[in-house]
């Protein structure tokens, strides 16, 4: 995708005949004429093009909205266990799901007061999301049930909107565990990187056995029991060891789940593999578009989010809610800013019901500001990027990783080009 720029106006050439304008501040999308595109490559702009571009550039949108600031933690991930039955090649949880500190079960009696503390700070109608993580959380499904029961009672009392998500490797879907997931209407995210020839290599069991066929059987069982469950989706991790999202996409579509997503490894900044990833995701998008237009494209979470942001004219100023609206509890009831930080006890921002304000305070500014996103045209759709990915590449969470940024801009460009096609067809 070729890109030209006039201040806040970005011009994209999809290579398939579409010339697209994007207003980086107002999140508006437009059709550009061939002549306008051509003049953007000239050292001196055509005066009429200059006038029109300037007029659009200077428009003050009455529709675009800033991200609403968050003053409370509204999203909490809980490592109910720090054990895993798999040993994934890229595992960021200490290489084996333990974070270097195996914990069979989180202490329920210590976790309940932590949940209570955060929920008590919210007001009627607020949302509160709990994500069960591990290790493999279904190794301690009973713990999930107990915590969910408490949170449900509390949400009822406080009139909060409560949601659950369980992030699992998908190997432990049996009748008993599915009943537990149903008991709190969990949304389910299954980590699965592709068909067996890929997934068995990168996500094998601790004994180095392939588990993909077990996961597929488990998903079939889940699909027969969807009543009372939330959405079910599949996410894959891609990097130099797995560079074929298109192959994974074709596999995902056969699984009968609600959504899919494709993530590049946050700890890898190989520019060649990253570029190849974006090229393949472009093919995934094309195949999805041809197969089912907007409906099929929106099954891919990334595109669904981009379309939602552009339609809603909502600026994203924080890639994630780390320290502002989001915390992680490890299986020893320590609080962290990010799932990856659990590896390092020095990074704890609290223990039990004590949260250290001085460690949370520096994160209260928006990430696009802290990460110096400056005049990056994609900042309001990106939100400043993943601090962990930046830190792995540059040594600082607030010094951006250019490979991450290039990849994100490319993926956003793909999103804008399909958004344009879909909305133009509706006009």
């Amino acid at each position: 995708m070729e890109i030209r720029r006039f201040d806040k106006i970005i011009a994209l050439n999809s290579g398939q005949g579409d010339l697209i304008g994007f207003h980086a501040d107002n999140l508006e999308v437009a059709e550009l004429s061939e002549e306008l595109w051509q003049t953007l490559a000239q050292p001196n702009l055509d005066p009429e093009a200059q006038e029109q571009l300037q007029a659009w550039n200077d428009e003050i949108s009455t529709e675009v909205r800033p991200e609403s600031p968050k003053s409370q933690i509204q999203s909490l991930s809980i490592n109910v266990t720090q054990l895993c039955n798999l040993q994934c090649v890229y595992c960021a949880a200490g290489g084996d799901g333990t974070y270097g500190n195996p914990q069979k079960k989180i202490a329920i009696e210590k976790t309940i007061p932590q949940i209570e503390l955060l929920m008590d700070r919210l007001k009627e109608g607020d949302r509160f999301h709990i994500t069960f993580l591990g290790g493999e959380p279904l190794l301690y499904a009973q713990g999930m049930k107990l915590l969910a029961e408490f949170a449900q009672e509390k949400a009822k009392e406080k009139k909060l909107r409560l949601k659950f998500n369980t992030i699992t490797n998908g190997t432990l879907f049996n009748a008993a565990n599915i009943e537990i997931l149903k008991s709190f209407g969990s949304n389910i995210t299954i980590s699965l990187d592709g068909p067996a020839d890929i997934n068995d290599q990168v996500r094998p069991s601790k004994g180095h056995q392939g588990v993909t066929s077990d996961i597929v059987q488990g998903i079939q069982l889940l699909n027969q029991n969807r009543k009372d469950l939330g959405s079910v989706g599949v996410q894959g991790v891609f990097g130099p060891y797995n560079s074929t999202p298109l192959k994974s996409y074709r596999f995902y579509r056969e699984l009968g789940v609600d959504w899919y997503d494709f993530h590049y490894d946050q700890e890898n900044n190989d520019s060649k593999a990253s570029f190849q990833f974006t090229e393949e995701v472009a093919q995934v998008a094309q195949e999805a578009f041809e197969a089912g237009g907007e409906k099929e494209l929106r099954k891919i979470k990334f595109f669904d989010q981009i379309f939602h942001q552009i339609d809603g004219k909502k600026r994203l100023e924080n890639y994630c809610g780390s320290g502002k609206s989001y915390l992680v509890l490890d299986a020893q009831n320590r609080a962290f800013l990010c799932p990856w930080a659990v590896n390092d006890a020095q990074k704890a921002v609290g223990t039990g019901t004590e949260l250290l304000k001085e460690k949370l305070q520096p994160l209260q500014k928006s990430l696009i500001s802290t990460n110096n996103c400056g005049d990056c045209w994609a900042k309001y759709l990106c939100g400043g990027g993943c601090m962990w990915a930046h830190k792995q590449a540059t040594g600082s969470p607030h010094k951006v990783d250019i490979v991450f940024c290039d990849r994100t801009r490319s993926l956003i460009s793909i999103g804008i080009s399909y958004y344009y096609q879909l909305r133009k067809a509706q006009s």
Partner: protein
Amino acid sequence: MKKETKKIHIKKVKASVVVQTEDPGSCRPLNIL
């Protein structure tokens, strides 16, 4: 915007109406763990 000629133009596409939802701001790529 000023009236456009045929050759040079910018035509905005119309956004769809969406129901705004408050995002509690989790971690995006959680799946890696």
